């Protein structure tokens, strides 16, 4: 019964989506206020339908209804409750339904918070979102229905891939999807603006918070995914330039560019055409990323059920959405009007540089990801592009980004001079140089440079605050008063930029990792990276759907105990698969990382790592996302403000 209810709710949502895709757009075109006013209710109707549908899927999963094919293939009675819930979005079918749910949440958010928007713009944004949602909901219903029944139902399910049974991964997809799909809102705003034929500062002010929210989620989602591969896969790696990872990095790069170019639209009404293209491009990359991964075209370590037949449907959908929006762009972009002028050395100029560099990095990553496919298709060559290519091409492009990041916020709008900005950063440069020199004592050239760059970015970001509160130039109390008067968005910029610095420092530190694989007998002590690792014993443990072998390792340095690590090797009973549970002890300056391998003749294979600064990689991402939230909190106060000043508009008319 419940699966049929979910099925029906999905169909209901599609009915709403059809109305949502047609009526508001038609109303906005004809200037029919009633049709435009219908938009929010339709978006909310669609949201309610999909929420009900997804709730049914979770219910079916929790109650172990193996007559539903999707559950039978991905669940098991013994699977812990948490993973039965998260399993709802862990399977292919469930993840697509979840994707649709988030898209409808975007529509609902615009419906609920979009009150102050001009009626025609809101109607168009909701209409475009409805059109996009319609496509993917049809795909769910026709090609990947999560409620398909199975007869006769099996006694028990096939269980989920044990690697995916992890709390980190349980929260990874929702946050990542929020990021991916969140870019649908800037996309819808861009298409709506093209249909309206106008973009102004108010548009920029509207798009920024949505972009920021999506960007925060994407940042956190990518970081979570990378952290997961660090502590679950047990290779000690955190980023593999795998197609799936690149698919999430690409919209992040263009999304970051969009975040910055939208500032220029908001403040200076320049770069309009470019910003619209970026908004379309970012969502296009999100879409292609999520869906090409599922078509099986991209060769990846991340497994998903692959089915070329589904791929064709998805490709048609992508062609319609991306092709359609780019066609509208080509036709309507000239109506957006010319932009304000600015000199090359100015805040706008710096933001343009940021855009050029970020988009170049994105282009390089895209090339590296797709080149093997195209070489295979066109030239019939089998090649693989690995980390060396990405490192060699991304680093030289990232370096100027790092360099410019500290300087750019010091420049003024329209026209600035580089000299005074650089003078204000003298102490930052000095410290960065010292850090780089110090790092070069123990590190190779590139990581040492990266450490210097990290110091430059972190302190450069702080210098912006120091400059604004005129620290040491006015009495201290005065500075503190200024500090409290600063806008939250200023802290947002600082945190965002400093966070990237922290991540870069972590990456540089990780390149110094010490790793050894050793055969150790219980009772033996080995020395790795200046620590004594004592294998105290081996034992057996039992989980709900697995049996584990646990090693107890006592780590000490110069006789002082530091940590006890108990890495596990888990044998899952239903999937006959073994996973390793790495154990990590961190003090935020270094990670001690232990993995238990096979056992031979009473001795255990242990892989022991000392990873310097490893936690900083994800800490930095967290700081970046926090910076975004800071900006967002500031913006929210003004979200009601950007009503297009009707009086000003009336005055400008002759």
């Amino acid at each position, binding site marked *: 019964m419940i699966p049929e209810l979910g099925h029906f709710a999905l169909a209901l949502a599609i009915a709403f989506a059809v109305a949502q895709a047609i009526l508001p757009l038609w109303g906005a075109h004809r200037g029919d206020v009633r049709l435009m006013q219908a938009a929010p209710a339709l978006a909310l109707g669609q949201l309610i339908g999909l929420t009900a549908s997804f709730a049914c899927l979770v219910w079916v999963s929790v109650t172990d209804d193996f007559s539903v094919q999707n559950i039978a293939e991905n669940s098991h009675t013994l699977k812990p409750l948490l993973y039965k819930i998260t399993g709802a979005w862990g399977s292919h079918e469930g993840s697509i339904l979840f994707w649709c749910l988030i898209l409808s949440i975007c529509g609902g958010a615009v419906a609920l918070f979009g009150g102050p928007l001009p009626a025609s713009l809101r109607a168009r944004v909701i209409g475009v979102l409805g059109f996009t949602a319609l496509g993917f909901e049809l795909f769910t219903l026709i090609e990947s229905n999560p409620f398909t029944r199975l007869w006769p139902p099996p006694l028990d399910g096939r269980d989920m891939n044990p690697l995916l049974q992890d709390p980190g991964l349980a929260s990874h997809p929702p946050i990542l999807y929020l990021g991916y799909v969140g870019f649908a809102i800037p996309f819808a705003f861009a298409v709506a603006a093209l249909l309206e034929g106008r973009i102004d500062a108010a548009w920029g002010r509207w798009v920024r918070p949505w972009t920021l929210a999506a960007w925060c989620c994407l940042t956190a989602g990518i970081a979570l995914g990378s952290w997961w591969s660090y502590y679950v896969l047990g290779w000690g790696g955190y980023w593999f330039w795998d197609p799936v990872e690149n698919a999430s990095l690409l919209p992040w790069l263009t999304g970051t560019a969009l975040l910055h170019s939208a500032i220029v639209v908001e403040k200076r009404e320049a770069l309009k055409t470019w910003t619209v293209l970026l908004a379309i491009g970012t969502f296009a990359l999100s879409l292609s990323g999520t869906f090409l991964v599922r078509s099986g*075209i991209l060769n990846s370590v991340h497994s998903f059920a692959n089915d070329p037949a589904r791929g*064709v449907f998805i490709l048609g959908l992508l062609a319609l959405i991306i*092709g359609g929006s780019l066609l509208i762009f080509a036709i309507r972009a000239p109506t957006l009007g010319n932009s304000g002028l600015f000199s090359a050395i100015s805040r706008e100029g710096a933001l343009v540089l940021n855009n050029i560099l970020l988009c170049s990095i994105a282009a390089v990553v895209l090339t590296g990801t797709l080149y093997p496919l195209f070489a295979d298709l066109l030239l019939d060559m089998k090649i693989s592009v690995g980390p060396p290519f990405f490192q060699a091409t991304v680093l030289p492009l990232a370096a100027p980004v790092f360099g410019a990041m500290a300087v750019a916020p010091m420049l003024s709008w329209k026209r600035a001079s580089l000299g005074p900005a650089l003078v204000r950063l003298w102490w930052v440069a000095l410290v960065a140089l010292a850090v780089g020199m110090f790092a070069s004592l123990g590190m190779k050239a590139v990581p040492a440079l990266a450490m210097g760059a990290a110091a430059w970015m972190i302190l450069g970001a702080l210098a912006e605050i120091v400059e604004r509160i005129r620290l040491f130039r006015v009495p201290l109390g005065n500075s503190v008063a200024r500090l409290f008067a600063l806008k939250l968005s200023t802290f947002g910029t600082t945190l965002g930029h400093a966070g990237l610095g922290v991540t870069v420092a972590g990456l540089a530190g990780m390149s110094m990792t010490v790793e050894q694989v050793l055969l150790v007998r219980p009772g033996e002590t080995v020395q790795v990276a200046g620590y004594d690792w004592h294998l105290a014993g081996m034992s057996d443990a039992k989980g709900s759907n697995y049996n584990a072998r646990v090693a107890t390792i006592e780590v000490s340095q110069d006789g002082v105990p530091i940590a006890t690590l108990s890495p596990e090797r888990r044998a899952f009973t239903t999937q006959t698969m073994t996973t390793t549970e790495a154990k990590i002890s961190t003090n935020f300056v270094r990670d001690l990382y232990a993995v238990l391998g096979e056992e031979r003749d009473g001795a255990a294979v242990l892989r022991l790592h000392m990873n310097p600064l490893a936690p900083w990689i994800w800490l930095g991402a967290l700081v970046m996302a926090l910076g975004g939230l800071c900006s967002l909190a500031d913006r929210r106060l003004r979200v009601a403000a950007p009503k297009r000043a009707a009086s000003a508009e009336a005055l400008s008319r002759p």
Partner: protein
Amino acid sequence: MNRRLLLLAPLGVAAVGGVSFWAMLRGMKTGTFDPRGIPSQMIDKPLPDFALQGFGRADILALKRPVVLNFFASWCVPCIDEAPTLLTLNRANVPIWGIAYKDKVPATDAFLTKYGNPYRRIARDLAGQVGIEWGVTGVPETYIIDAAGIVRWRYSGPLSVQAVSVVTQLATT
């Protein structure tokens, strides 16, 4: 005019990407494009020398007509999936010869009784040695050998509907 062209450029890039991906998806179905696979070294080469209990290279050459060679095993679940497809091909008069790969004889026989026997001849590669010579990456795997004994086509995994049409074309002409 130039500005117009510039604004059309993103659409052009997207179109090229879309057409390419479409070509890839098509290729994946017919077996001509496999992003995961390593290319078979056997394509357009004469079939390797082997002699098994059942048949060998000499038997295939003596046939003087195209033949489909299918590696399978009773322990392979996708092979069960593929069984009805092969039976249909057999009924359509496509000659299919099977090699049971690393499989115990009674198990193979039970498998064929249960799911049907589409093979005109069956050879048994108990040690998996012939599989290595052919460069088999997994079962099921299907090859087409032309009348002159040259390997013309390979497909890894259970045959899809599109692959079946390729097989019918190649193996009956």
